[in-house]
């Protein structure tokens, strides 16, 4: 999951989703980065509309759980 999250952070910060940036984010989080997965992810995301995917998820019924934890 962390690889995909890294892409999402870059998407929000407006930075390019490339191998260097994804690697940097993951390393900052202490992840032992696998170069091949970064490569594969970056390549795969080239054909994906991230905004749309993010909005689709947001539009889906979000989980009810809610404030409980807040107390």
């Amino acid at each position, binding site marked *: 999951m962390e690889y*995909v999250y890294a892409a*999402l952070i870059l998407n929000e910060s407006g930075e390019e989703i490339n191998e260097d940036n994804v690697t940097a984010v993951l390393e900052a989080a202490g992840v032992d980065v696998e170069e091949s997965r970064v490569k594969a992810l970056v390549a795969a*995301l080239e054909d*994906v509309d991230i905004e749309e995917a993010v909005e689709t*998820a947001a539009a889906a019924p979000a989980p009810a*759980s809610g*404030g*409980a*934890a807040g107390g």
Partner: protein
Amino acid sequence: MSGSASARRTETIPEWKKEEVAELVDFLESYQSVGVVDVAGIPSRQLQSMRRELHGSAELRMSRNTLTVRALEEVDDGLEDLTEYVSGQVALVGTNDNPFGLYKQLEASKTPAPISAGEVAPNDIVIPEGDTGVDPGPFVGELQQVGAAARIQDGSIQVTEDSKVLKAGEEVSEDLEGVLSELGIEPKEVGLDLRGVFSEGVLFEPDELAIDVDEYRADIESAAAAARNLAVNAEYPTAQSTPTLLAKAAGEAKALGLFAAIEDPDVLPDLVAKADAQVRTLAAQIDDDEALPEELRG
């Protein structure tokens, strides 16, 4: 109605008529609601049993129409409006029930009856879908003749769908009378037909008296819903609107929290869930398994 006009007429009529009118006037004045009912076509024996059924809640009084009209005019008070309904075979009905109750009672006492050729259908005549129970034979042709969808099936004559064979207001044919009789369909409702009621100063016609309680219930519901909507939309707190207003306000705060990704303890569980959903959605669009951890692979 001018007093002098009725006085002039009174002089010219025989004593027994005066007495009859006086009795009718007594009858009319002794009830809160008085109506005119159509008794045409009701056999006298059935009329007797209807009288008995009404006993205690309403009373029937028959007389010559001219005398009935005279009595209605004599009472005045608005009752003379009922004279327009006095024609053909009619009777007066009096009750202390409200006119709606009277109408309901009269409708309930109606009984089905066969209809004869030459009569006008009071409502649409429908031959219902189903097994007629009649053995295969010429009857299937008779059914088709009058416009019913009929065929032979499983050893008997079946009507394959509800078939309207005559529209209200049309005349019943010999053929149709025969078919309806064979099937035992009685399309008429025979009973006392209320033409008009005068009750405590107000004249009612049957269409005003046929109360659809369901419609009133629906109106109560929509009135209550309208008030709720108004109270909530105008943010006017009442016992009913306040829970909705609170929920709405809480929902708005939650929406804002999610929308702006506010780091509030009440919002974060949802934000985390949302982030997770986003990751999964995004991953679902990546068709290279190598780019994904096992848990996200399709």
